[in-house]
């Protein structure tokens, strides 16, 4: 707030406007380029900024390296979700999905390759697209958002093949369970639904807020036990139960992550680890703030949401570390695990500010890129 007053030079209207914009900017989505050296970030004004990670991480990094290489107006509305294929950057926001060529963008040529709109039922208000999911084996792109359906688009032809209906309120997040293959979707109605991609039918519904965890979080079964036995071990231990639902937050599922046997989901209800085969929750992570993004990383679970910090959890439910970032709330985490650029292997976090925090080491924040 005091930024405007701190400037010595009197500002013109444009600078004032831009300053105000940056004050109220929210970065919703990130995506790493296929070569791993660049990071794209999409914000609530519809802009996408490309940052050069390699430049920012190098030893001669200057202040400008932390600024975007190129910024362009991608959408009219906020860019809620971005995903990269091996050549394209796909971004989605207000009802449309657009594709950009990475090669083009890096040369600062910001022209969309194509744009598609899934067939929506209602036309009164264009629903947003909150989540994009790539299914590389089938070359599918799955979109989900405000119209409560999952649309599948074939990336080659660009046609929308089917739509999965089942959610009663809009969908927040998608996750892919590779083994089956199944798609998990979490929505505002509080349910995580599992859909079989081949049959295009709903397989299972887990209403998270109705469950409670039976097992004691500190009694951690040994890791070498296979999944189902681990679950059994947890179940057989004596149970003081913890409820998943937190009514004052609501029941919406904001984030999902899965590694085929296990699923972690959070949002209004507490962040919980579930065993998918038996559909039982096994661990409740004691985090009061609703989490907006969660992901598995090695043997940890990383989550971020309301609150400055990136939280690192053990599978047993213990908090390993809380690393503060620079934004008051985080909406998106991105792990650059592209094999082509191992030196840029960083965790980037972005949310309710114009900055993207870069963590080179999970223990602390190295620096921030800013719009």
């Amino acid at each position, binding site marked *: *707030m005091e930024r*405007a*007053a701190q400037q010595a030079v*009197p*500002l013109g*209207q444009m600078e*004032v*406007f831009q300053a*105000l*914009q940056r*004050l*109220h900017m*929210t970065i*919703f989505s990130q995506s790493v380029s296929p070569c791993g050296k660049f990071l794209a970030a999409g914000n609530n004004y519809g802009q996408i900024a490309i940052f050069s990670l390699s430049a920012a991480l190098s030893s001669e990094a200057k202040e400008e390296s932390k600024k975007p290489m190129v910024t362009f107006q991608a959408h009219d*509305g*906020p860019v*809620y979700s971005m995903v990269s294929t091996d050549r394209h950057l796909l971004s989605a926001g207000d009802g449309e999905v657009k594709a950009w060529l990475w090669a083009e963008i890096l040369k600062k040529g910001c022209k969309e390759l194509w744009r598609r709109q899934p067939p929506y039922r209602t036309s*009164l*208000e264009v629903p*947003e697209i*909150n989540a994009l999911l790539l299914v590389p084996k089938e070359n599918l792109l799955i979109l989900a958002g*405000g119209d409560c359906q999952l649309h599948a688009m074939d990336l080659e032809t660009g046609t929308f093949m089917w739509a999965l209906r089942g959610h009663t309120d*809009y969908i*927040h997040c998608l996750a892919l369970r590779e083994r089956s293959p199944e798609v998990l979707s979490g929505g*505002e109605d509080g349910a995580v639904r599992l859909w079989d991609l081949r049959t295009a039918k709903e397989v299972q519904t887990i209403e998270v807020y109705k469950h409670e965890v039976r097992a004691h979080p500190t009694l951690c079964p040994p890791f070498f036990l296979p999944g189902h036995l681990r679950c059994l071990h947890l179940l057989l231990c004596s149970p003081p139960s913890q409820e998943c639902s937190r*009514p*004052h937050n*609501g029941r*919406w599922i*904001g984030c999902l992550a899965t590694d085929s046997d296990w699923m972690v989901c959070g949002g209004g209800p507490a962040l919980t680890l579930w065993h998918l085969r038996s559909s039982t929750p096994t661990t409740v992570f004691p985090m009061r703030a609703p989490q*907006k993004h969660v992901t598995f990383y090695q043997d940890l679970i990383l989550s971020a949401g*309301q609150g400055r910090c990136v939280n690192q959890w053990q599978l047993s439910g213990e908090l390993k570390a809380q690393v503060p970032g620079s934004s*008051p*709330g985080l*909406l998106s985490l991105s792990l650059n695990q592209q094999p082509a650029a191992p030196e840029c292997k960083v965790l980037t976090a972005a949310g*309710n500010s114009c900055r993207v925090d870069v963590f080179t080491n999970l223990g602390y924040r190295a620096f921030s890129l800013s719009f």
Partner: protein
Amino acid sequence: MSSESSKKRKPKVIRSDGAPAEGKRTRSDTEQEGKYYSEEAEVDLRDPGRDYELYKYTCQELQRLMAEIQDLKSRGGKDAAVEIEDRRIQSCVHFMTLKKLNRLAHIRLKKGRDQTHEAKQKVDAYHLQLQNLLYEVMHLQKEITKCLEFKSKHEEIDLVSLEEFYKEAPPDISKAEVTMGDPHQQTLARLDWELEQRKRLAEKYRECLSNKEKILKEIEVKKEYLSSLQPRLNSIMQASLPVQEYLFMPFDQAHKQYETARHLPPPLYVLFVQATAYGQACDKMLSVAIEGSVDEAKALFKPPEDSQDDESDSDAEEEQTTKRRRPTLGVQLDDKRKEMLKRHPLSVLLDLKCKDDSVLHLTFYYLMNLNIMTVKARVTTATELITPISAGDLLSPDSVLSCLYPGDHGKKTPNPANQYQFDKVGILTLRDYVLDLGHPYLWVQKLGGLHFPKEQPQHTVITDHSLSASHMETTMKLLKTRVQSRLALHKQFASLAKLQAAVVLNPGYSSIPPIFQLCLNWKGEKTNNNDDNIRAMESEVNVCYKELCGPRPGHQLLTNQLQRLCVLLDVYLETESHDDSVEGPKEFPQEKMCLRLFRGPSRIKPFKYNHPQGFFSHR
């Protein structure tokens, strides 16, 4: 003395010559009766006169002897002792004679007494017999007189006269041939006939009684039937009430109301009539009712005779109480004041329903002595209002109706005549009593048809229907708008009280817009750090300020921003999701039209207003 006593004993022994031992008298009494010396027998033989003479002689001798002894003793001498002794013996003999004579006298006395006694007893016995006989005689005489006086009951009976008797009585009773001659038999016959008649009459009487019983029972049954009819009729009436309501013809209710309305004082009556008429004709949301005690209203108009009786009683009571305690001057004045400000027991209750289901309850009272009407107001809302401090007074009954018409505060009495009345009892102004009695607004007086010209006081004021009718419609509309605007204001206050906004104004205002930072204190402190929606609201106001500039040169920016902030706050509070685990209605019921409540990963509320369509959506 012992010698004398032994001598005394001796004569006893000597006297009883022939008896072996006197001591054994009792034992030998029965066997020796003949030999036994009985003095009683001797007494009969001797002559009492001679005994008396003997007594006198003996006494003389004794006196002589005593004198001689005296002489001798005084002379002394030797042979004096022998002489004395001799004389002493003689005197002893004389003493014995005296004793005997004494005994005889006693015995004679005793005998005489016995004889007297016997004779007396006999006389008594005869006397007693005589008494008994006399008593018996008297008794018998009484009996005789009684018998002679006995009146047989048959003489009390009014027997039928002889001719009738002979006419009516059947011959086996009358027995004319016998009875003609013999009055006794005649009377007997007549008595028989009387008995016969009486028996017949008794029979008839019994029959009549049983008849009567039967008829009484029938009457009872019929009465019960009638009395059970009344509650059935009542229940039919009750049952018809829902039908009445269904058909919107509440006759019964209206009838009752009109009944009670008859007891209303004139201004309240005018109000009632006009309000009901208005309600039926124009405004279905208006309902009129009468509250209060009809009996008290009737009591105000009691006939004068009763009050006179009461007066005499109360005079007596008053005297008593004045003897005990005089009420103080202040208490008297207080009583007079209370009397002056007395309200009529009936009041008219008007309920104005507004569109959002909140109801304005108006209760109209009539102050009898002051001839003005007052009103008390109360607002009830469909949902419970949580009153923030700043909005405390908005809906308070005291002020919700003030200044409905310009200048009409309702603190002063509109009737100029009241001023003189107040002076008498020391009331300065009606303002002090307004909370209790209600507000005497001018429009209330007009609704009741009371017209007070401002210039001169009048003694009587006529109540006027036309005055009331002309004001009714405007007043009702004003009341409704007042209530709605107050409620809306209340809500605004409630929502705004929770919001704090810090504004930074740059000297280059209006080209450089003010920046708002918001902090909402509701269910916890929410700022842009912890609530995405607050951030969105700030961004609406800070970033999208170009929309809010208004016409050039855009000086209205701040006010427009504030206004938009209010609207955003409304949207925020109304669309806040209701916590299902907590019971109760929503604190801010949703009134704005929104397409979707949440959108996007941040779950932002719809803050963008679409102008002509009038709904909220997301940016």
